[in-house]
């Protein structure tokens, strides 16, 4: 399944990129993420409750950040397993300056298998889009407006 889209956040690119590679921020922004533990350089183990409405499953996942080119690009590789099935995927995030705001473009390819894929097929795409939307909304509130914008002039 393909996931792609873009999201604009009213904050400087440096700050957003720093947030996107900060595990404590990621934990707050990934919907349902309860725990995120560093296991190596840019590698993390996460525990999350993912789902929609009352339908939920608990997943454990490994997350690694690759091809990091600050402050414009990185690749996110996720492998998760849980009682309702498995998720395997990777996504590329690109950041661009856009009239004082930052535009994040994302494109990913996700494989979902097991029970959740066979019975939840008709809702998976919409769920993925919804979770992506929630992630960027949280990222927005984490990065926009909190602290005064640094005046490094980048």
């Amino acid at each position, binding site marked *: 399944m393909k996931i792609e889209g873009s999201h604009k956040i009213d904050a400087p690119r440096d700050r957003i990129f720093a947030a996107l590679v900060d595990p404590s921020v990621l934990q707050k922004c990934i919907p349902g993420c309860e725990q995120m533990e560093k296991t190596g350089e840019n590698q993390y183990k996460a525990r999350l409750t993912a*789902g*929609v409405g009352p339908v939920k499953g608990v997943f454990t996942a490994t997350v690694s950040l690759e091809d990091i080119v600050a402050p414009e690009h990185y690749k996110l590789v996720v492998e998760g397993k849980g009682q*309702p099935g498995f998720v395997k995927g990777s996504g590329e995030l690109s950041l661009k300056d856009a009239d004082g705001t930052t535009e994040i473009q994302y494109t990913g390819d996700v494989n979902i298998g097991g029970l*959740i894929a066979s019975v939840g097929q*008709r809702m998976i795409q919409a769920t993925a889009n*919804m979770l992506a939307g929630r992630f960027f909304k949280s990222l927005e509130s984490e990065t926009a407006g909190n602290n005064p914008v640094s005046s490094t002039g980048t």
Partner: protein
Amino acid sequence: MIPASFDYIAAKSLDEAISLLGKHKDDAKILAGGHSLLPAMKLRLMQPKVLIDLGRIRDLSYIKEDAGQIRIGAMTTHFQVEISDLLRRSCPLLPETASHLGDMQVRNKGTIGGSLAHSDPAADWPAAILALDAELVATSAKGDRVIKATDFFIEMLTTALQPGEILREIRIPSGKGKPAQAYVKVRHPASGFAVVGVAVNLSIDGGKCQSAGIGITGVSPKAYRASKVESALKGNALDAKTLSSAAAHAGDGVDVNSDLYASAEYRKQLATVYTRRAIELAASRAK
């Protein structure tokens, strides 16, 4: 295919159900027919610790007319809606929608309130409820709260119902004159859910459309009012040209679902075609 263990409590009254829900909170789910809940529990996609069954509460199942409104108890089954004389006469959209829903077993046991509270993105009821400008009555320890249909559906499987609230009644404004209503649907061949479902509720006077309610389900992650189609119909004679240009807006402004059965592009096209057919059918019934 065997659910995780759970406690079952058959509430004897709505008050008892509310207090049980207050006691068990997130551990509890309301059982209101169970034709979505039990399959999900058998797959262990939901594992409530307690089920509070509303099925024994007699006074939650009724269809009556009162003070310019039709009132339907939340535990009224789809089949009871389908065969109601009162509804067939004054709001035939609801029996027609019920007749498209699931299969005989689902219609016999499933309830209108259960389906609405579950809020499957491809369920049939939300389309009709939106087209009819219905109100939904939620009740809790604090009393009743009336929610407009347009405010009820938040996202898929998520409604405006708050923790501790139970959907108690659905209220439909009584229409005037001969009803101009229709529900048409592209049925998913395996699940019976709506690939696209369009509910239309028109008021026509002097050959012109005075008001239009159009609810669409199955197309996006939640059912919605096709407001652009509605405004394109209002004040106009329902000729072929008006119908086509109005129906072209059926998928405007929403994220269109895509799955193995129907791509987003195909679904959007279906929404346009079936919206036109539904309006045509509704208008022909007013004559």
